[in-house]
């Protein structure tokens, strides 16, 4: 069997093309391709070379439309045993090709050519074409005879023209030879035999039959020649005769041959035009051809020779003729039967040819899977021949099948779609993706795919093509590792290494092997080197352009709402960058990656290779770094990996597709997941642009970058050192704060930074920052407590409660190359790692007040000072403790009011508390208030040991205003006046606000500072607690009662009674009263308001049991003067007296209390008394005074 047969093969003149002398394969191919242009020589073109020696047997030769067809057999072919049967199998001409420069001696060339021609007995014309001869050759050539044709060196066109002429000459010569042959065949009784014919001697009747047969065969041979000579009509006539004769002699084989010839002549006659009628005719006749070939099968010599190959050839010819989509069914039937017949073929090479043809025809038909199937059969046949060239053939055939099985090498894909990919890298992304998804679907025929790859590997090894072997093993391992046993995986790994050993080092392969590489993350700028676009129009150039938070995406950012998947990334020339990739080795052997680095096709990126070891079934995230070298765009499609001795490129996109497929269940397994790595969101490769160098500030906290540990409220300075690590000076810098607890940064020495500008590369500046620790919230406390308990304090830092210092800085405003574009600035985010520890904890605040009743003496309990300049009368003693206890100047009793703070110290250090009260001088209006020159009171420090709690008392004595007037309620009254009674709620609100304001004012004057150790100090923030404690009784603290009462003994001698205001020190020694004695007393009422108060005063006296002693039948005290219903009127800020006398019957302790009911109370008084309704009487009750009565009963 022969490859590439078709119905028209019968009319082709076979010409052997032989290299003569030394012709390199390239040159030979080149000359051959020149010949191929002259496969068809029109008869009209050769008429000039043709001379009719005798009457031509080709009577109907179409000189104007016909042509001769050549089939060039490069390298020649051995004579076929079937030459007699089909003349077109004969080599009818020989063309030698000689390249003169490499074979200078023309004599030798001719000798060689003649020797070569010896093998071709059937050749009618022999020519040797000598190309590129030199002048001496040309001279010689003239005498060498006409077999040698010299082609003088000339341009290609001229040479081709020359060649055309030569070919036409050959054609004419052949035509003349054919005429001779036909005439000879008609006359002479040459015996035409095929291997099919019986070798045995013929019986007598068969001899007669044989004569007729001989005639038929001769007719067929003549027909063949007619066909070769391009005269289909003549051929048809001869074939008809042959058919008739062959049918009579039941010479089926020749009958079929003649029939084939007649079909060919029919087609040639019709000049290749195909219509359905012809198609039907051809189909009909060829079916008959096939049938007759089958009929000619003779059992006797079936072992030796069989017409089967002719039958199959005829089948293929018909199939090729019909091979169109519309006829697919017929063609498939034909091809299937041909393929089925292949098993009966004796010759292996016949089977090979048959499979090749079947595969090709299926391929033409568009049945790529069947084509692939038969190609694989071909490859298997090749592999059965144990030699290298067969293995190479097998490998190449298998390589063709890879497309159908979707296991093709990346190299072959990229050759195909190179134009696509370069032209539209981004726009076609979706389509490419789709394609790859489809191929993922198809890649599930793993059983078939693995077989193909394994056979490629086998054949490549046998063909000694290490690169192909490597590629096949790589594909096999990468795609089908889950289906391969660990032992098999190891085998593939060693196949990879063995192949690599035969390859020169540095060989690249298009197909990646292991490991799987996926993009883990593109670290968007670390906060240390944020790049901020400069807004040239603004002083604060970073505003509005900078990402305003830790989030890459904010829902409020405007523009490009759909394009947020494509992140822009800016890299800077000369600054190293990192990309995190994840590697996975899902196979059962340890993988050593000799080097892996980012592959950038843009050429402006230097990647640093690293080497990695991946143990069995493991994955690893590694950081790959590199330095952008020049301004422009950088694309990083994947990594370049040097593993198993070959350099491959691993594209991120491929692995993404793979993982995508794995997620959909299309791919066998996700290599990362089976290595225990977690599922990762698809990371998109950002657009990376490289910009010119920028300054780069690097910061560190002096004294270590660890957390700054502060107790609540602690104030401390830290120093931050900033250094310019870039190559461009910093010319502007601006500091701002962000994050939580910004108020904990009290001050930043911005001026220090300012004065250091411009900061040259390498220069450093240190700026102090004052911090004050914030209060821990209750939640913080709990978590902190929990953390302390679990012993992981460090974690606490991560909660992001610390503020960050933002430094926006920029280099020179213009760079030298481009004046128009402002280079971007940068932002340094310096998170202050402040760890606030719980300091003193505040438990509660309480207002303590107590009154110690005064004794009624001869003198009034002295007001602390009645006049500012008199100090002798003050009760304030030198004793420190006594200082805390003040006599209320107007109430007449010892009044004590403390703010008690309960503090506990849960820490492990000692705290010392100091309280200071700041007084407002301005508030002291009329000098009657407590006045000591110091505006601050210092109190002894309180020390709280660790794990103890303690109470700190803050006296609240200095705040009372001396006069009860409207100023306190001013707002209240005004609002009442303006809005009337309509807005009571509003006025109440105002009252409340006023109250709060005054409390705040009060609180702000109290400062509680603490100190711990040598360098920790701070202030307790307890405002809220104090406020809560004071809320209810602030009026009592701040305001005096409207009336104050006092009792005193009037001296025994009544004349002293007149000198009320000047009690004598001497006589007023002890306020003791004798029983059974009339004791004159007086009650003093002072009006603390600015209005005159009318009142109804009553005095009561009670004994220790609380019984009223002046009333009832058992009264123990007699009295003189009036005790009840005393009507008094006291002028503003004045005092009145009322005298009376008591006669105590029983000695003991008595208590005197004055009560006044105020008539016609003003609003101020009502507000002070907190009365509900305006009708309620306002009752002022004085403090109790003790009277100690001595004597006997």
């Amino acid at each position, binding site marked *: 069997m022969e490859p590439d047969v078709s119905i028209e093969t019968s009319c082709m003149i076979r010409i052997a093309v032989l290299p003569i002398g030394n012709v390199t394969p390239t040159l030979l191919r080149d000359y051959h391709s020149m010949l191929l242009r002259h496969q068809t020589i029109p008869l009209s073109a050769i008429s000039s070379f043709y001379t009719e020696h005798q009457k031509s047997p080709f009577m109907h030769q179409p000189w104007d439309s016909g042509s001769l067809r050549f089939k060039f057999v490069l390298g020649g072919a051995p004579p076929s045993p079937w030459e007699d049967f089909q003349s077109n199998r004969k080599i009818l001409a020989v063309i030698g090709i000689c390249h003169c420069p490499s074979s200078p001696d023309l004599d030798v060339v001719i000798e060689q050519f003649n020797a070569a021609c010896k093998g071709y007995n059937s050749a009618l014309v022999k020519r040797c074409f000598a190309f590129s001869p030199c002048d001496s050759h040309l001279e010689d050539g003239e005498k060498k005879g006409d077999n040698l044709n010299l082609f003088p060196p000339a341009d290609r066109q001229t040479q081709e023209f020359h060649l055309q002429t030569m070919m036409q000459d050959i054609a004419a010569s052949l035509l003349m030879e054919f005429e001779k042959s036909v005439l000879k065949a008609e006359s002479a009784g040459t015996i035409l035999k095929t291997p099919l014919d019986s070798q045995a001697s013929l019986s007598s009747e068969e001899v007669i039959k044989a004569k007729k047969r001989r005639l038929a065969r001769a007719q067929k041979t003549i027909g063949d020649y007619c066909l070769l000579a391009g005269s289909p009509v003549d051929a048809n006539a001869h074939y008809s005769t042959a058919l008739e004769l062959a049918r009579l002699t039941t010479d089926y084989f020749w009958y079929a041959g003649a029939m084939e010839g007649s079909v060919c002549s029919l087609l040639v006659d019709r000049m290749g035009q195909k219509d359905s009628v012809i198609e039907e005719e051809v189909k009909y006749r060829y079916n008959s051809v096939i049938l007759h070939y089958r009929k000619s099968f003779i059992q006797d010599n079936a072992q030796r020779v069989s017409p089967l190959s002719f039958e199959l050839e005829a089948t293929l010819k018909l199939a090729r003729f019909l091979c169109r*989509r*519309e006829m*697919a069914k017929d063609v*498939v039937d034909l091809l*299937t039967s041909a*393929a*089925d017949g292949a098993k009966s073929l004796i010759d292996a090479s016949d089977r090979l040819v048959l499979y090749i043809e079947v595969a090709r025809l*299926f391929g033409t038909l*568009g*049945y*790529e*899977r*069947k084509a692939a*199937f038969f190609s694989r059969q071909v490859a298997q046949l090749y592999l059965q021949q144990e030699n290298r060239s067969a293995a190479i053939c097998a490998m190449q055939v298998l390589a063709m099948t890879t497309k159908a099985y979707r296991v093709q090498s990346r190299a072959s894909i990229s050759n195909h779609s190179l134009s696509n990919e370069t032209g539209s890298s981004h726009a076609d992304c979706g389509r490419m993706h789709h394609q790859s998804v*489809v191929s993922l*679907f*198809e890649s*599930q*025929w793993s*059983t*078939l795919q693995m*077989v193909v790859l394994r056979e490629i590997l086998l054949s490549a090894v046998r063909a000694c093509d290490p690169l192909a072997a490597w590629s096949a093993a790589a594909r096999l391992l990468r795609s089908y590792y889950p289906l391969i046993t660990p032992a098999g995986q190891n085998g593939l790994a060693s196949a990879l290494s063995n192949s690599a050993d035969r390859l020169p080092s540095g060989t690249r392969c298009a197909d990646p092997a292991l490991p799987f590489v996926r993009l883990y993350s593109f670290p968007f700028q670390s906060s240390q080197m944020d790049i901020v676009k400069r807004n040239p129009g603004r002083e604060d150039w970073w505003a509005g352009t900078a990402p305003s938070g830790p989030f890459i995406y904010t829902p409020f950012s405007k523009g490009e709402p759909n394009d947020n998947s494509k992140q822009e990334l800016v890299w800077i020339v000369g600054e190293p960058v990192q990309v995190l990739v994840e590697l996975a080795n899902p196979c059962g052997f340890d993988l050593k990656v000799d080097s892996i680095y980012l592959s950038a096709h843009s050429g402006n990126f230097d990647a640093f290779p690293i080497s990695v070891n991946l143990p069995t079934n493991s994955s690893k995230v590694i950081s790959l770094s590199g330095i952008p070298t020049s301004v422009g765009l950088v694309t990083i499609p994947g990594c370049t990996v040097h593993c198993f001795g070959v350099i491959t490129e691993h594209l991120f996109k491929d692995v993404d597709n793979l993982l995508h497929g794995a997620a*959909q*269940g*299309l791919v066998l397994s996700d290599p990362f997941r089976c290595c225990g790595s977690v599922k990762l969101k698809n990371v998109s490769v950002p657009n990376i642009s490289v910009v010119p160098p920028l300054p780069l500030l690097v910061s560190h906290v002096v004294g270590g970058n660890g957390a700054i540990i502060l107790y609540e409220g602690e104030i401390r300075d830290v120093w931050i050192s900033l250094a310019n690590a870039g190559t461009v000076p910093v010319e502007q810098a601006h500091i701002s704060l962000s994050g939580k607890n910004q108020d904990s940064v009290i001050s930043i020495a911005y001026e220090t930074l300012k004065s250091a500008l411009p900061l040259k590369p390498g220069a450093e500046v240190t700026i102090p920052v004052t911090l004050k620790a914030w209060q821990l919230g209750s939640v913080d406390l709990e978590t902190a407590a929990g953390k302390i308990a679990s012993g992981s304090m460090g974690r606490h830092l991560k909660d992001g409660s610390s503020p960050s210092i933002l430094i926006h800085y920029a280099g020179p405003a213009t760079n030298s190359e481009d004046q128009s574009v402002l280079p971007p600035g940068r932002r340094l985010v310096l998170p202050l790692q402040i760890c606030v520890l719980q300091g003193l904890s505040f438990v509660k605040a309480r207002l303590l007040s107590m009154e110690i009743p005064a004794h009624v003496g001869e003198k009034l309990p002295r007001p602390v000072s009645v006049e500012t300049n008199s100090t002798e009368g003050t009760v304030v003693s030198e004793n420190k403790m006594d200082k805390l206890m003040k006599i209320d100047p107007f109430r007449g009793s010892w009044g004590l009011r403390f703010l008690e703070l309960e503090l506990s110290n849960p820490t492990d250090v000692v705290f010392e508390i100091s309280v200071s009260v700041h007084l407002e001088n301005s508030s002291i209006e009329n000098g009657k208030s407590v006045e000591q020159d110091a505006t601050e009171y210092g109190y002894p420090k309180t020390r709280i040991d660790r794990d103890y709690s303690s109470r700190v008392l803050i006296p609240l004595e200095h705040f009372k205003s001396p006069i009860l007037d409207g100023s306190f309620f001013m707002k209240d009254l005004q609002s009442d006046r303006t809005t009337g009674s309509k807005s009571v709620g509003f006025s109440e609100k105002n009252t409340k606000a006023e109250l709060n304001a005054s409390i705040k004012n009060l609180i702000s004057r109290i400062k509680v500072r603490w100190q711990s150790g040598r360098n920790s100090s701070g202030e307790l923030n307890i405002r809220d607690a104090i406020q809560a404690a004071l809320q209810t009784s602030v009026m009592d603290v701040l305001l005096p009662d409207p009336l104050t009462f006092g009792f005193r003994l009037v001296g025994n001698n009544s004349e002293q009674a007149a000198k009320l205001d000047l009690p004598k020190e001497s006589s007023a020694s002890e306020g003791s009263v004798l029983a059974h004695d009339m004791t004159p007393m007086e009650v003093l009422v002072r009006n603390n308001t600015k209005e005159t108060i009318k009142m109804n005063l009553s005095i009561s006296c009670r004994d220790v049991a609380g019984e009223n002693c002046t009333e009832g039948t058992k009264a123990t005290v007699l009295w003189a003067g009036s005790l009840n219903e005393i009507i008094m009127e006291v002028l503003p800020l004045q005092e009145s007296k009322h005298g009376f006398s008591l006669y105590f019957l029983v000695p003991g302790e008595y208590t005197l209390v004055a009560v006044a009911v105020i008539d016609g109370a003003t609003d101020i008084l009502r507000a002070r008394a907190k009365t509900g309704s305006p009708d309620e009487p306002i009752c002022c009750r004085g403090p109790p005074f003790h009277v100690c009565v001595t004597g006997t009963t």
Partner: protein
Amino acid sequence: MIVCVAVVGHQNNPLYIQSFTEEDDALKLHHIVHCSLDVVDERVNNPKKSGPTLNETFLGLLYPTENYKVYGYLTNTKVKFILVTTDLDVRDADVRNFFRRFHAAYVDAVSNPFHIPGKKITSKTFSERVSAIVKSFGLSSAG
């Protein structure tokens, strides 16, 4: 005897291939099923103009190969069912019937809420049911 049945997804991805022979010819049957997709594709892309076959799911005999006959069936979701049999004279009605039952089994299998469309069918129930259908195919043709 049915030697192999297969379900092939609409992207020509195998969803289920089960052979019913003792010999180790899985690869060969895979090849046969794989090759049959060519014919299915061709039938789908060049539908016959004749009316009745317009909505026909049964594709008929796809091709005979060696000792096998390959039948095809195309669901309206473009899922292909392939049947490989060694019986040389098979009645079309039998094959149609087989495919109809097979289709029902397939529909039940993919209606499982835990089945991911496009993924290989791993349901044991399905394969048991298919085995039963395959066995009964032999019986009904005999009877």
